């Protein structure tokens, strides 16, 4: 199965462990995530101003390029890209005037470069998160046929964040208040599922740029909550959640006093491990809180290879 893949700007350089482990896991399942030959920034956030033509044009270009590759689906790992691209589809489908203006602009642009352009209406390319591919195209129950390494009851608290879930009407990804897609995945991989009340609380997101104190409090609450419910590690889907929860643990200790370090892992790293991807390809060395001692204690990775 081959599906076009949109990495997004963060994946390539700043979340290499997420990108590499996600691609390796897909490959182990026989899915080829093929990076679009050319892609631009999606805008990273869906534009919420009234005058948003410019903000919608760039992500529409990504979707149009996907269609020009002859595809009708596009996979992302980054929840910000997922959120933006999927909401752009929704916006184009429901706002005829914006659709007309964006298409007029892109038609002119593509035709100058010698391509034939067909109107894009927001329905031609379906945006999928890799978790949806796992759930809907592979099926969690079928994963066991591919598992090479049982995760031996590793206690995982799935933290969902916001971007995959909201707004529910536009994304229709999972239950916004009580999501379960990652828990089902990890159950299939042999983890012990830690349900905890902070799984959809905000981590502080990009508030950590202009109000780091407020973000720190939010992330700290999440980590403490997961710890209280007995988690060995928190699994995330988003590199900004990873930044707030993982890289900011030092700052948390400075502000709130000592906590036992909590490893933060991308869901794809655990999946890759379970599917038998060599541990060197999972990027476990790229974390602020080193997850390797934990994984070694469960004998999921070996110390020598790192």
């Amino acid at each position, binding site marked *: 199965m081959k599906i076009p893949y949109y990495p997004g*700007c*963060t994946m*390539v*350089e*700043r979340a290499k462990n997420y990108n590499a482990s996600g691609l390796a896991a897909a490959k182990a399942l026989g899915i080829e995530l093929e990076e679009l030959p*050319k*892609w*631009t*920034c999606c*805008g990273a956030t869906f534009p919420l101003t009234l005058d948003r033509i*410019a*903000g919608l*044009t*760039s992500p529409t*270009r990504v979707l149009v390029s996907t269609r020009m590759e002859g595809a009708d689906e596009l996979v992302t790992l980054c929840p910000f890209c997922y959120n933006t691209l999927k909401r752009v589809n929704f916006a184009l489908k429901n706002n005829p005037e914006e659709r007309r203006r964006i298409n007029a*602009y892109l038609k002119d*642009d593509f035709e*100058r*470069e010698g391509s034939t352009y067909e109107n894009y209406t927001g329905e031609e390319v379906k945006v999928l998160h890799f978790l949806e591919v796992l759930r809907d195209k592979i099926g969690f129950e079928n994963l066991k046929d591919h598992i090479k390494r049982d995760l031996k009851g590793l206690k995982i608290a799935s933290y969902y964040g916001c971007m995959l879930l909201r707004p529910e009407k536009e994304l229709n990804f999972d239950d916004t208040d009580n999501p379960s897609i990652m828990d089902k995945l990890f159950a299939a991989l042999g983890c012990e599922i830690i349900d905890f009340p902070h799984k959809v609380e905000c981590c502080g997101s990009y508030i950590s740029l202009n109000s780091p104190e407020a973000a720190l409090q939010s992330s700290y609450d999440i980590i403490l909550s997961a710890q209280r419910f007995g988690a060995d590690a928190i699994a995330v889907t988003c590199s900004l959640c990873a930044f707030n929860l993982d890289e900011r643990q030092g700052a948390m200790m400075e502000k709130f006093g000592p906590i036992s370090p909590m490893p933060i892992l991308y869901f794809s790293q655990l999946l890759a491990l379970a599917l038998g991807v060599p541990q060197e390809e999972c990027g476990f060395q790229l974390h602020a809180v080193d997850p390797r001692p934990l994984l070694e204690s469960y004998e999921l990775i070996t110390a020598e290879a790192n």
Partner: protein
Amino acid sequence: MAQTTQTKEELAETKETGLIPIFIMGQKYEVPPSLTIQKALEYAGYQLIRGCGCRGGICGACATVYRKPGSYRLEVGLSCQTVVEPYMYITQIPFFPANKATYDINLLEPTGETVASLYPEIFKCIGCNTCTRSCPMDIDVLEYISQAIRGNIRRAAEESFDCVMCGLCAARCPSELAQYLTAILCRRLYAKYQLAKAEHLEKQVKALEAGKFEADLRALMQTKEEQLKTLYKEREVEPAMADETWEPKDKSHL
């Protein structure tokens, strides 16, 4: 398309004189149709002190924007390379003020963070692609800026390789990026830190420093002018289409 503004009388007039009308900064001039825009400017009486360099399409000094009758589209070119057409509206934009970072290349690290800190405005890119449309060298400017944004210095350097630094991308950018300056930063970082070193070059420089051509050059300096002219005229020149196996007949200087 041109028919929308050309009257029959005007066309007849063109036929008679052999000249075609063009507009330079809004003023009409009659010029021979075979000229480049640059030569047409000079034919019309402009003395080019700036906005003119190599006259060979390499230096990027003569960036020009023009429009042809019957179309709303702005077109771009290097004035030394673009031939005039009837009723072209022409203006040169030889320089455009763009934010130029100051740095010592020896003190930088070849990372996306370096590019981001020296040219943070690249993150204001809205992906409109106007830069690509404005490039007289047909570079995919949006693509190399996208690569710079995601920190891929190698791809940004490769995609921007043909850039002549004319600055039209920056002139047209709604986000006020300095694309061509960001690009040369990427090429410098790539060349200095990532590209494999050319060993043969280092060897040759060492040989030169050791005096490889010293005697030859000294002999040349003693040569009389007339003989120097003969030597120059009779020198063996590498053919334009020579492949990499070409060697001169006299191999004494290799």
